[in-house]
Every structure is written in C-alpha cells, then in structure tokens.
C-alpha cells in the first residue's frame, strides 16, 4: 500500500526522483510547507540566495556547467516576479531550468490576495512551458513533465506554480515510474538519412566552406562536441563560434578562426561573408551574428543543423535544413562519410585557407598597450595566460568586458563558459558563478565583470560568504557602462548621457565586509602578481582592476552594417553616417 503524502512532501520526493542535488531559492509565506519538508530531509541541498533573480542565474550556471537541470524554489508574488528576468535569460539561451513557485491557495486565486501574482500568465512567453497545479492529483505529473520538457528538445525553463493548499493536501505518490503521461512531449531528434547524404554532398563540393557553430552543440552534450571535432579534423574546414558556442570545440585549435558577429574577428566575419558553403550547427542567425541580413554571406549555400524547427528560415533562408539532435546528426554524418570512404582533399580548400590566413594576419584583436595604464585586453590576456592550465570556469556580466573575455580567453572544453547571450542580462555573472562553484567546488571559477554590471546583483556576496564559495570576481573597472559609452561615442555625438558610474563603492572594502579578499591593481606591471595571488587565495576574491576608462571594443560591425564593413580600431571611421535603419537597431 502506498502511503499518502502531502503535496509539499511529494514535491521533495519528486525532486529526489529527478536526481536533484541542489536547489537555489528563497522562502516566503506561500512555500513554507515545501521549506518545512526541505528541513526534514538531507538529500537535497538548498542554497539560500539574496534575490530570486540570482536564484535563477545560479541555477543557469549550475545547469550550463553540468548539463543537468537547474532548480529554483521561490515564493508567490514578488518572489515569483523576481524570477522573470532569470527565466527570460534561460529561455533565450536555451538553459534547462525548473522553477517551482508557491501560489496563494486555490480559493484565493483571482482575489488580489496578499502576495498574489498571476505568474503563470506573466511567464507564459518567457518559459518553454508552465503549470498551475490546481489539483493535488496533477502535482507529481506536473513536476516530472517539467523536468522532461526542460531538458528534452531545445532546452528551456519550465515553471510549476503550486498553490499553498495543494502543498498541504494529501495523495498517494508511487514515484516517477508510476506517474502517468509525464513524457508525452517527444520532439523529433532523428534526422532523415537523405538530408545527411545531401549535406555530405555539399561538404564535398565546397571550395570555401565555413563551420558556424553555436551553443546548440554544447546543449546536445559532450558527444556532439566530440563528433564535431572529428568532422573538423576530417574536413580541414575553418570553424567560427558564436558567443554561446565558445568552447564547443577547443578555441586553441588551429582551424578555429575566432568568434564571429558584431565583435567577432576580422577573419571570422570575412570568411562568413565570402564563403561558398556555410554550415550552421546549433546556432540561430541572431542579429548580433548576421548584421544587415540583406548583405549577409550573399554567395554561400547555407546548411542549418538544429533541434528546433522554428529556428529554420527565421531570419536567413537556408538551402538545406536538417532537424534533429546534433549529436545524432553529426554521428550519422561521420558514419556516412566513413561508410562511403569519402575523403576531403585539403588541396581544394588551400586557396581558401591562404585567403583566411591573410585576413588573420591583420591581427584584428591587436590593441595599443600601455606601460602606465592597464588596458582591459591586457588584463584578460594575462588572466588567460596565468589560469588557462587550470581550465577555469568563466562567467561574465554583460558589456565590453564580456566581449573582451570572449575575444581574449581560451576555451578548451565545452560547458566552461557561461555568459548571457540572448537577453544580455547585466548582473548575470556573479550568481551564475555561484551556481557553477556549487557544482564544481574544487574548480577555479572566475566572474569576469564590469563595475556597473556587478552592482546589479552584488547582494549575492552574502550568499558567497554563507556557503564559503571561492568565486573569483575579476572586475574590469573603467568607471563607465563601457558598451553604452562606446555606442554613445559612435552613434550619439559623444554625448555620454548617464553612462558614467559615479559613487562606486570601494570594492576592496566591499569584499572585506563580506569576508572576502579585496585586491586592487592599477599598474600594468602589477597585473601578473594580482592574478597569481587571486588564484592562491582559497576563499572568494574581488579583484578591482582599474583599467583605461576610454578603451573601446573592436572589431565592431556597427548596427545595420554587413560583415565586410567592420571597424577595426579607434582610428577606423564609419563610412558616412549610420543609416536610419541602423540607428534604430539595438
């Protein structure tokens, strides 16, 4: 005989069945029964954050660095609405997260009760799916299907809203195995063989190919990365990666020609522009990648490999689309190549490589270093040089520092780079780093931050203190919202409206007040010592790296321009005015 359990207990039991080890949350009136059950068990660890947005970002960091589902627990009303930015972030970047929110009791719903918010209504467009559990009999099914939906197909966040009375009602729970119909969601993962044949055919014919690799490869799992590495080796084709895709295959590889897009390398963007075959793997032709769509890679045939059918032909029309799980698509492709004994002649693409290497020789990431002031690029180069052997997990906030980190750091493995790509959420990096550190307690976790972004979730220093998380916060402090200032310089006549960061805290003292170590550096000659010391310190560290306040991020494709209209440095002037069409773009 199955025993009857309370709804709150079923939540915990179901999480245990889903193999959940950690949840990030914040208690409140409408989830007290669940917190009570949490108290009575020791299989799930709860991390108490200081703001619910941070709980979601921490869960994202946990999920992206492990491949598992990140779990969040919050109360109703403000607890739930505070998760909206995090959920939208997870939606845009395809991160599997399950968010459980408390709700006012069922009979109070719709009455404007205390701490009531229609969170299912609010999060409908920013979750992959959501549930309001109105009957105790549907509770277990809702939780298990939430996990199933979050991690299958293109991953994303799922919210389960549980009214307080449902948490106290009792019903039988026979575990996941005996829960009916939670796995009804079955996205197609297997590609058709004839598309694979066509794909290989295009690979064989191309003289100017390029692999354009996105975060989908990382989401598909380590096998996808492995197969892609193999395919790269067999073909000898050049490879560029999106912001989300960095590390899908090692960025130290010689065939890697840098990130592409708005702040991508000269060689990557020009290769995209001039290629005759573009192979998009798990990316989505985002506007940061394409620039002006009408001038995007005009002469190439385009192949798109993706799990999500709604990504096909959304902004750019492609010639061949292959829908399925990337690791399956890549595996089938490799098998077909092997079975048919197809070999790829390096000769055929040798002129292409000569051209690419000419572009490479431009050394587009070059910057004018200084002896008196720290250039942000230099700080990151040194960080990369001194930490790379430790395979650190890197998170970032959003802005110039994020782009420089993407340009100057090396990623040898997938799942080591956590950044807010689609939504561009300032304040993402610190809580994400907490989530990563919880998942990888022994590893080096660095949040590359800006002084503006870090303040958006600085309260999480308290969480870091409580759980003794040795997160290293590497602030490139230029006293500006650097990216905002850069756009104001470029597009708004250098009128720096509200982008100066006045009244900043003393980051060293701030660190100390949370029991962390604070280090400050302002001379290039002291950079290495700072980084070495940062690594040596066992606990959390805030490094206040005072950098050149005027430095801008190049290369840059101004909005509304095409890949071959890149600005390479501060002396590169725009050709004429930016079009009105470009001015309205973000």
């Amino acid at each position: 005989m199955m025993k009857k359990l309370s709804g709150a207990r079923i939540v915990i039991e179901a999480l245990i069945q889903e193999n959940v080890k950690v949840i990030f949350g914040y208690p409140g009136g409408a989830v007290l029964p669940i917190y009570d059950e949490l108290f009575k068990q020791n299989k799930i660890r709860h991390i108490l954050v200081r703001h619910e947005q941070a709980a979601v970002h921490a869960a994202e960091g946990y999920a992206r660095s492990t491949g598992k589902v990140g779990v969040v627990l919050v109360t109703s009303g403000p607890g739930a609405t505070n998760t909206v930015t995090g959920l939208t972030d997870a939606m845009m970047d395809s991160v599997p997260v399950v968010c459980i929110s408390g709700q006012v009791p069922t009979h109070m719903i719709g009455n404007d009760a205390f701490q009531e918010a229609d969170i299912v209504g609010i999060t409908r467009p920013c979750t992959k799916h959501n549930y309001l559990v109105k009957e105790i009999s549907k509770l277990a099914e809702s939780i298990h299907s939430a996990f199933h939906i979050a991690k299958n197909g293109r991953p994303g966040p799922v919210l389960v809203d549980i009214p307080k009375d449902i948490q106290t009602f009792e019903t039988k729970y026979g575990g996941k195995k005996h829960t009916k119909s939670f796995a009804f969601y079955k996205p197609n993962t297997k590609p058709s063989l004839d598309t694979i044949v066509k794909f290989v055919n295009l690979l064989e014919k191309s003289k100017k190919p390029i692999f354009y690799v996105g975060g989908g490869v990382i989401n598909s799992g380590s096998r996808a990365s492995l197969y892609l590495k193999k395919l790269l080796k067999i073909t000898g084709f050049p490879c560029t990666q999106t912001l989300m895709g960095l590390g899908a295959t090692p960025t130290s590889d010689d065939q890697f020609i840098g990130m592409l897009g708005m702040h991508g390398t000269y060689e990557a963007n020009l290769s995209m522009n001039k290629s005759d075959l573009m192979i998009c793997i798990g990316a989505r032709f985002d506007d940061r990648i394409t620039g002006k769509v009408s001038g995007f890679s005009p002469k190439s045939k385009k192949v798109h490999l993706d799990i999500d059918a709604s990504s096909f032909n959304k902004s750019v029309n492609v010639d061949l689309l292959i829908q399925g799980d990337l690791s399956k698509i890549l595996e089938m492709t490799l098998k077909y190549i092997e079975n048919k004994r197809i070999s790829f002649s390096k000769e055929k693409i040798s002129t292409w490589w000569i051209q690419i290497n000419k572009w490479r020789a431009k050394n587009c990431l070059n910057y004018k270093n200084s002896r008196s002031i720290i250039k942000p690029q230099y700080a990151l180069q040194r960080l990369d040089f001194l930490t790379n052997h430790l395979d650190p997990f890197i998170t970032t906030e959003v802005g110039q520092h994020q782009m420089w980190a993407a340009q100057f750091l090396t990623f040898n493995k997938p799942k080591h780079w956590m950044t807010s790509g689609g939504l561009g959420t300032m304040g993402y990096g610190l809580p994400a780093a907490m989530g990563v550190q919880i998942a990888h307690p022994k590893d080096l976790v660095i949040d590359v931050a800006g002084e503006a972004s870090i303040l958006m979730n600085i309260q999480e220093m308290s969480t870091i203190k409580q759980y003794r998380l040795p997160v290293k916060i590497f602030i490139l402090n230029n006293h500006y919202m650097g990216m905002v200032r850069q756009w104001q310089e470029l597009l708004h006549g250098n009128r720096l409206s509200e982008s100066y960061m006045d009244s900043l805290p003393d980051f060293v003292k701030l660190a100390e007040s949370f029991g962390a170590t604070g280090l400050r550096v302002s001379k290039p000659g002291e950079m290495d010592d700072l980084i070495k010391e940062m690594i040596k310190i066992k606990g959390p560290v805030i490094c206040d790296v005072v950098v050149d306040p005027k430095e801008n991020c190049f290369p840059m494709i101004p909005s509304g321009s095409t890949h071959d209209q890149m600005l390479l440095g501060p002396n590169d002037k725009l050709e004429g005015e930016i079009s009105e069409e470009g001015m309205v773009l973000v």
Partner: protein
Amino acid sequence: MTESHSKHILSIMVDNEPGVLARIVGLFSGRGYNIESLSVSEVDSDRFLSRVTVVTSGTKNIIDQIKAQVRKLIPVHNLIDITELKSFIGKELILMKLDIKQKSVLNIHKHIKNIGAKILFEDKTVIIIEFSGTPNEISGLIKKMKVYNIVELTRSGLVSMALGKDYIRR
C-alpha cells in the same frame, strides 16, 4: 521586398486545458502576427481535445514561422494548414436581431426565406435570424439586411475542414 501576403487557415488540435488559448493568442501578439479570425471549442470530450481555427496572413516565411512556433507549444498536438490542401470549406455563423416595428412582416419573411436564413425568434418588435456561410456570404448578408434596422449582430470565427479524404489527426 514585396513578397506577397496570403491568407492561411490553420487548424490546431490542442489539449483543452486552462491557458491553452492564451498560449496561442499570446504567441501571435508577442511575435507580431495577425489574427483575422479565431474560433475554438472542445471537439473530443473523452480525450479533452479542442480544435482551434486561426485565420492569419503573411508572407511564406512568416506563415512557416507561425506554424513552427505554434507546433512548439507543448499542448499542441497537431497543426494543419487547411489552405495548403487541395480543397476545403470554411463557414461562419451569424445571428442578427432586426427591428421590425416599421416594416411589413410578410415582406421580411419572404426576404429571409429567399436568402436562406433561419428565423430563431420573433415577436412584434424584433426578429432574430441565423445564417451560416462563407465569410463573403455573411458580409453580403449584412449588407442586404441594412435595409432593416439591425439592432445587433454577432458572428463566429471561421470553422474549416478539408474536402475529400484529408483530415487533421488527433
């Protein structure tokens, strides 16, 4: 670019659960797609399935994107684009209340009979008629009835079905 816009009738089978219509409608409004007509009702009470008919318009790319996005919604079981099938029928229903105080009842009865509408209710002051037809037929009817004093009218969204063997799977 002057890609041509065309009208499409989408038939969507969904779980009949709270919020399912909001998911579909929210998707259209959130992504800036147009809904020209909408009708929804449960069609399978054993399996709690509803059938939603949406009339929308857009370029081929937009229509393809709408279909892909709708298919991604978790409670959506199946979607067919009825306009892409060989032949189909689409009907709307209209109820109309006419003020007949000043008119000859006999003439009205004759007129209604000629049009093929049905009388649902009648007293000394008003008459309510029912008519079903294609959107064009319905619009034509409204025009014709303007000779009377139309007190109010209500028309349903389009419901549609493929002719011949084609049908939407559950």
